[in-house]
């Protein structure tokens, strides 16, 4: 899967399947500090992401990074 991160902007390629919760854990990100966006909607923690998914991990803390 393709994972887009912000502040600074960068991309990662990770192998699926992987739940959103495990993805955030693997990237050492606090789930309170980010949203995971796929297309024009949000995906909750138990969603399984596959190899062909493209997701954005969007920081929500003002001035924060992901």
């Amino acid at each position, binding site marked *: 899967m393709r994972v887009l991160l*912000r*502040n600074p902007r960068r991309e990662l390629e990770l192998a699926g399947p992987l739940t959103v919760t495990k993805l955030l854990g693997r990237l050492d990100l606090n789930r*309170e500090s980010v*949203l995971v966006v796929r297309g024009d*909607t949000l995906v*909750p923690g138990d969603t399984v992401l596959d190899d062909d998914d493209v997701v954005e991990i969007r920081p*929500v*803390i*003002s001035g*924060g990074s992901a």
Partner: protein
Amino acid sequence: MKCTVCRGPAVIDLRRHNANFCAEHFLTFCREQVAKAIRRHDMIAPGERVLVAVSGGKDSLALWDLLLELGYDAEGMTIGLGIGDYSDASSAASQAFADSRGLALRHVDLRDEFGYDIPTAAAVTRRVPCSSCGLSKRHLIDAAALDGGFDVVATGHNLDDEAAVLLGNVLHWQTEYLGRQMPVLPERDGFPRKVKPLVRLGERETAAYCVLRGIDYIVDECPMAAGNRHLRYKEALNSIEAVSPGTKHAFYFEFLDKAADRFQPEAAVAQDGLRPCASCGAPTPTEVCAFCRLVDRVSGAEPVPVELLRAGRGRGRNRARSRGARQATS
């Protein structure tokens, strides 16, 4: 994961509420939380005109949208801060939101109308950029509200903002600021009423609201604010929240219920003795207000590009820390 309300597929989990929501019921939840904050703290009466301080970020655009959804007469105002590409993108996001809904958006540009911008003010005053930025925004929004006949100014401070400021004020026992850290600051001579209708929503929730409403906000944050102390307090609170959901809500709202009153006499003393600024007429404890003194000092100075200021901040950071930039919201 299923929506707590309708059992349809959920798009977000809110652990502090022990609830999951689909898009429709999450948006309803946000509207209910804002309506509850307004009602519980007597923020806005029916029919009152609201001036919303808009930055183009998630909080201010969500706030403006929510107030309109709840039927309030809300107009937006932005301030051109001159912080390079960030300010350009902020203004564009605010204008796009207003245009998409056919709304009026007031705009004041610091460079055009007062002869300075925030990077230049920071360089000339040798203070952190947030100092002149906050001062400028407070002064100009207050003035616009009074001149425009608005009943109230609404700002996008959310639960995370208030909890982080509270933590900073407690750590340094800033008792005057603790006495003023309320969801409503009442109208006084020369000051409009100021309200924070988002205090019951965290910033993860305001960001989610924007995504689900299709609001195209500026995601990249101000380059002047990166790494500041306020951010570190937020990260510390989120680390606790991750293992103890509800901590931020309890910290802030229990403070309001159990302790805020105790600090209000000190805040009141600090606000005694205000008189009109000799230059602009705004309330001030000195002959000339801080905003007019800032304009007098920095207006016409050689513009400092934001990139140059950022490059120099590393050298000045220790000095700024030692001055102890205070944490306060208005």
